[in-house]
């Protein structure tokens, strides 16, 4: 089992983000379209990584609510871009446990005749190893 320190370092490495650059302005959370669905808010991701509390991030629903819309990435004035941290945390979870948020068995119930291939492809890319 990796220590929290290892995992925090991994998040920093995978994301390429230096969370210490954050000035806590909250523009990420102000921009996030899924804000209300998230238990840990985009701006909080930064301090969770700084404080190496990765287990909480790993269990957070926010990982699956993030839309990858890059609004926070575009608008962050400090080059922190929390979207990248969220993506890295999601990677860690998916890689570590193979804990898949989506399984093939679920698919038939979720789709309709019009569902574009793109949606399935991207869902698999995002949600499982």
């Amino acid at each position: 089992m990796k220590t929290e320190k290892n995992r925090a370092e991994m998040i920093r490495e995978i994301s390429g983000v230096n969370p210490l650059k954050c000035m806590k302005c909250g523009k990420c959370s102000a921009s996030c379209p899924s804000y209300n669905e998230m238990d840990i808010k985009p701006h909080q991701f930064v301090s969770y990584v700084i404080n190496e509390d990765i287990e909480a991030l790993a269990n957070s629903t926010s990982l699956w609510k993030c839309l990858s819309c890059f609004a926070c990435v575009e608008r962050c004035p400090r080059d922190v871009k929390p979207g990248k941290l969220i993506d890295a945390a999601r990677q860690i979870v998916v890689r570590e446990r193979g804990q898949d948020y989506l399984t093939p068995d679920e698919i038939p119930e979720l789709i309709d005749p019009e569902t574009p291939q793109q949606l399935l492809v991207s869902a698999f890319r995002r949600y499982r190893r």
Partner: protein
Amino acid sequence: MQRIGVFVCHCGTNIAATVDVKKVTEMALHEPGVVHAEDYQYMCSEAGQELIHKAIKEKHLTGLVVCSCSPRMHETTFRNAAEKAGLNPYMVEIANIREHCSWIHKDIEEATEKAVILMRAAIAKVNLDAPLKPGESKVTKRALVIGGGIAGIQTALDIAEAGYPVDIVEKTPSIGGRMSQLDKTFPTLDCSSCILTPKMGEVNAHPNVNIYTYSEVESVAGFVGDFTVEIRKKARSVDMDKCTGCGVCQEKCPSKKTPSEFNRGLDTRSAIYTPFAQAVPNVPVIDRDACIKFKTGKCGVCSKVCQAGAIDYDQVDEIITEKYGAIVVATGFDMIKLDKYDEYAYSQSKDVITSLELERIMNAAGPTGGHLERLSDGKAPKEMVFIQCVGSRCADERGKSYCSKVCCMYTAKHAMLIRDKYPDVNVTVFYIDVRTPGKNFDEFYRRAVEEYGVNYIKGQVGKVIPQPDGKLLVQGADLLDNKQILKEADMVVLAAAIEPNPDVRKIATMLTASIDTNNFLTEAHAKLRPVESPTAGIFLSGVCQGPKDIPETVSQAGAAAVKAIGLLAKDKLLTNPCTAHSDELMCNGCSQCANVCPYGAISYEDKEVNDHGVREVRRLAVVNDALCQGCGACTVTCPSGAMDLQGFSNRQILAEVDAICR
């Protein structure tokens, strides 16, 4: 052979904590020419200098090496100490073992080793030092102030009061600058015009002050005490002597569609215009790009209505050449352009404005007559939202890395004024931090919250969303309540970052004054010489040096004036003796050196030389010490090696290279 003394400073623990100063001192004694070495806690102190004095006298030293802080810090101190003891001040070299060694290295062994090497290089250089004598140059007793805002006005007034003539060069048609655009000032809520216009009048009337408005500095030559400046006085198309300032021409001018610079483009002005009613001088200019007469040849209404006959369509730009002893830069600031921040919908809604635009809206002489209203439909707002730090404190290329410093306070001011005048208007401020370091500043901000009920929310705004009904939806974060907020607003005010006047880069280049990555002029020392440029004779006043509010600007303007007065009060200046010098026997008169000299300091003379018994007349390079600034460009370009720089000679630098690579 020199007799060299080496003095190693501990600088308290600044050096001694990382560099083994005892070892450095001991190593010094093994170096050629060194006859004395000692260390002391603070070499720059009175007691430290006394040690140097004593050693020079007792050991008959001919050269000194001081291992201490940067020469930019204390070289002069130690040179003066040497001079007092009867040693030529140019026989002193500094080994920088603080900024370049102890402060940046952690390992004592490594740092000590490096300190020894730096000391060796300095010793090698002193061994080849020769006494130098500075020359003298004259001081033109006139100062130039570039920029006619509050900084320039104050500096000019202070210099003029001390009895020296001053010229102000102002680019726009009137002095007054940004302060003239403000409505009220924090933290006392003084009316800006009420305190500025008397100063504008005073400086205009002062017998020692000469104001060139609608003018720009064209070129600068020379150096401290003796600058030659060309000023372009742009064609005003109005005779300043004849014009009475009655204003009829502006009323009758048929071209009224140009956005008013003074009102930040919120309304329009005529082609012939004064920027504002209290303009100094109260003489309009014709904007030739907007004037129908200049564009089509037909019109001439202003000329017809001018009873004084002051309109002159044939005026041309005039170049004035003047000499100055000192130059003060007071070029001020502007707000950044917001085109990269359209998440705030600045270009998509007329009701999203900048703070400076709000100043104009709040001002009785502004586009709405001082009435707070939405620019889209003229309706009175009920909900106002202020957004802080728009483009300030940014790590990306969209904005500025620094804090603009004035926004927190002026936003508190705006919020308070609005709540005071329109109690039914709710005011919300989205902030990241509220910064109020200044006399009565925090009290002022607290009043906005406690007495005026301004709603401060900690968190930035993500997006301003214009609504079909004309309202604005502000989507922001409340970090303390951990909520995302959607707030409906009638107007949104953006505290856009301030940036140095874009012209300052051009001016700094002309003045050879250094400028930082944000285009602020660099001061000679951040703490101890904050109003001087590293370039001698150039002084800094106001926001051109860094963000400042009005009281700070006025204090700095006064300080810059005092520094300029101190210079103008001297009859002679000592020149830098580290000038180039040509060896007559080696020079072949090829003119390469004169081609690269930026000061025109090198000329050629036919001179008789005695070359190993052969007497002949040769064409030789001669350096004018008064003009040479000692850059050394000529020394490298000289193909025969005749040209060398005193104080930084070829042999000296090679000796340093050798000492470092040893």
